[in-house]
C-alpha cells in the first residue's frame, strides 16, 4: 500500500529575535510523517523539539523552508487560517492536560467541535463515543478535579480526536503521570495508531520513544 505523506517539512529553519540578536533554533529540518505512522521525536532540552512541535502544530511560523500538510502548503498562513487548520487537523495532547477546570468532562471534549461549528447534537454524540472509547463512559459529567491524572489525560486524548484530525500531536503526554498511568496512556496511543490514527509524540524519555514505531532524534536544532 502506498504511503501517504501527512506532514512534510522541508528545510525548516527558525530564528528568534531581531537585528542585533538573532538566535537560530532550527537549522534546516526536513522530515516526512506518513499516514498511520507512530512517530516519537526525541531530544534533550534545548534541542529545539518544542519549537519543532510548535511549527508542526501551526502555532508558530518557520523562518524559511516549507511545510505541507497533506498536499496543502501551510507554510505561510495567516493567524486565522492557522487556527482553522489547527482546529481541524491537529489534535493536541499536552503534558499538563490543559482541561477547563470549570467545565464537566464532556464539555471539555466538545470544545474543538464548537469552534468547528458542529451542531450540538452531533458533537455531544461524538464526545460520548470518544469518552467511551478511552474508557471514561461512566465519567461524562464529572469535573476534571474529580479524576486522576491518567483519566484527565484520557479526556484530553478524546478531545484531541474530536474533529478527526490528521495527526495527534502529543507533547510529553506522560510527563505528569505516574509510571502505571503513563503505561496506560501509551497503550491507548498504540491502540489509536492500530485504528489508523497518525501519532506524533515529542519526548525526552527514551522508554517512551521506544514504544513508537519510528524515532526521529533531534539535537541542537537538527535531525540526527
Amino acid at each position, binding site marked *: 500500500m502506498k504511503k501517504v505523506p501527512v506532514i512534510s517539512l522541508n528545510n525548516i529553519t527558525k530564528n528568534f529575535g531581531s537585528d542585533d540578536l538573532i538566535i537560530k533554533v532550527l537549522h534546516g529540518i526536513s522530515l516526512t510523517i506518513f499516514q498511520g505512522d507512530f512517530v516519537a521525536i526525541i531530544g534533550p532540552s534545548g534541542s529545539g523539539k518544542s519549537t519543532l512541535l510548535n511549527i508542526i502544530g501551526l502555532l508558530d511560523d518557520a523562518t524559511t523552508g516549507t511545510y505541507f500538510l497533506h498536499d496543502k502548503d501551510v507554510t505561510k498562513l495567516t*493567524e486565522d487560517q492557522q*487556527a482553522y487548520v489547527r*482546529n*481541524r487537523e491537529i489534535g*493536541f495532547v499536552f503534558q499538563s492536560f*490543559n482541561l477547563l477546570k470549570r467545565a464537566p468532562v464532556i464539555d471539555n471534549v466538545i470544545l474543538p467541535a464548537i*469552534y468547528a461549528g458542529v451542531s450540538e447534537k452531533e458533537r455531544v454524540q461524538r464526545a460520548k463515543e470518544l469518552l467511551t472509547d478511552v474508557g471514561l463512559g461512566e465519567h461524562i459529567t464529572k469535573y476534571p478535579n474529580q479524576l486522576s491524572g491518567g483519566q484527565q489525560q484520557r479526556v484530553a486524548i478524546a478531545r484531541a480526536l474530536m474533529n478527526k484530525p490528521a495527526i495527534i500531536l502529543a507533547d510529553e503526554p506522560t510527563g505528569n503521570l505516574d509510571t502505571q498511568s503513563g503505561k496506560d496512556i501509551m497503550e491507548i496511543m498504540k491502540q489509536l495508531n492500530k485504528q489508523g490514527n497518525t501519532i506524533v509524540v515529542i519526548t525526552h524519555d527514551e522508554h517512551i520513544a521506544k514504544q513508537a514505531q519510528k524515532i526521529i532524534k533531534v539535537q541542537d536544532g537538527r535531525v540526527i
Partner: protein
Amino acid sequence: MNLKELLRLSIGALRANKLRSLLTMLGVIIGVFAVILLVSLGTGLQAYITDQISGLGSNLIFVVPGSSGARAGGSQTNKLVINDARNLSNGLQGIADVGPIVQQIVTLKYKNHTDKGTTVLGTTSNYPQIIVSVLMEQGRFFTLPQERLGSHVAVIGQTVNKDLFIHEDAIGKRITVGGTKYTVIGVLKARGSVFGIDEDNTVVMPIAAAQRQFGITNINALYLSAKRPELVRIVKQRANTILLKRLTADDFTVETQEQTLSTITSIIGALTAALGGIAAISLIVGGIGVMNIMLVSVTERTREIGLRKALGAKRNDILKQFLFEAVILSVAGGIIGILLGLAASYILAKFFISQVTPWSIFLAFGFSAAVGIIFGIAPAYRASRLSPIEALRYE
C-alpha cells in the same frame, strides 16, 4: 460560536465567581438605579406642574406685575390697579374674560372656632368661568351685582368649612374675616394641595370688598381667559397695548399659559437632565469597575485562552467571548438597576411625585449595554491578541 453558546459560556464564567460578579455589577446597578429614579422624579414633577397649570383652565393668559423673572409682585413695584382691570375688560370685550385678583392672609373666626393663615382671594364674579377648577359643592359663587357693590359675601374652601362648621351647614352663616363679618354663600369643592399649600384654606370674596377692608389699591394679578384658542394671541397683544397706555413695559408681564408651561417645563427638563447626567457619571464609574474585573479575568484565564486558541479559536472568537461576558455583566446590572429603580419610583409616587417613562428605561438599558461594550472591548481585545504559545506556558 453562536449566540446560544456565547451566552452559556459567559453566564457560566460569571456564575463561577458569583460574589465577584455581583460586586462588579453593583456599580452599574447603582448608576442605572439613580438614573431611573431621578428621571422619574423629574418627569413626575413636570407632569404634576403641567397638570396643575393646565387644570386651571384653558386659553389662559396671566398678567402679573414686574418684568418677567421678577414675579414677587411686592407692592413697591406693583403698579397694577383695578382700573387696569376695567380697561382690559372693556378693551377685550367679546374676546376674553378678565379676572383680577388680590390676595391677603387673614384669621377667620366663627363662634368659638378660629382659622389662622387663611388666604383671602378677592376677585370678580366671573372667576369660576376663568379658572375652571373652581367648582361649587354647596351654594353658589357671588353674582355680578354683588361684585359691583362689594357685598360682604364669601365663598369658603373645604378646609375652612371643616374647621369652622363642624356640625352645621355653612351656608347663610356669618363669619368674621379679619375683623369684619361676611355671610357665607357658597362652599368650594376640594382642590387639594399644591406643594404643601392648602388650596382649600381659602375665602373668596368680591374684589371691592377685599380692597376696602384691607386697604389695597393694587391688584396681585390678572387672569385673562380667551374665549377661543385662536384668540389667545390677539388677546395677549391687545392686553399689552391697553396696559402700555398707562404703564411702561417693565411694570407688567403678559404671558400665555403655554408660555408659562413651557418655561417651567424647560427648567424642570434641564434640571432632570442635569440630575440624570450626574447619575450617568456613576454609571461610568461602574463601567470602570467592569473593565477592571475583565482585565483581571483575562489575566487569570491566560492558559484557558491559550488552550482555546490552540484548539482552533480565532482572535475574533476570543474577543467575542470576553466582550460578551462584559456585556452580560453590565446588562444584568442594568436590569437589576432598572427593577430597583422602578420599585423605588413606585414607592416614591405614593409619598411624593414620580412618573416612570418608557424612554428612560430604554435609555438606561441602552446605557448599560453600551457600558459593557465600551469598557469590555479593551480587555477582550487584549485577550484575543495573546500568543497561544506564551499563554500555554503561563503559570
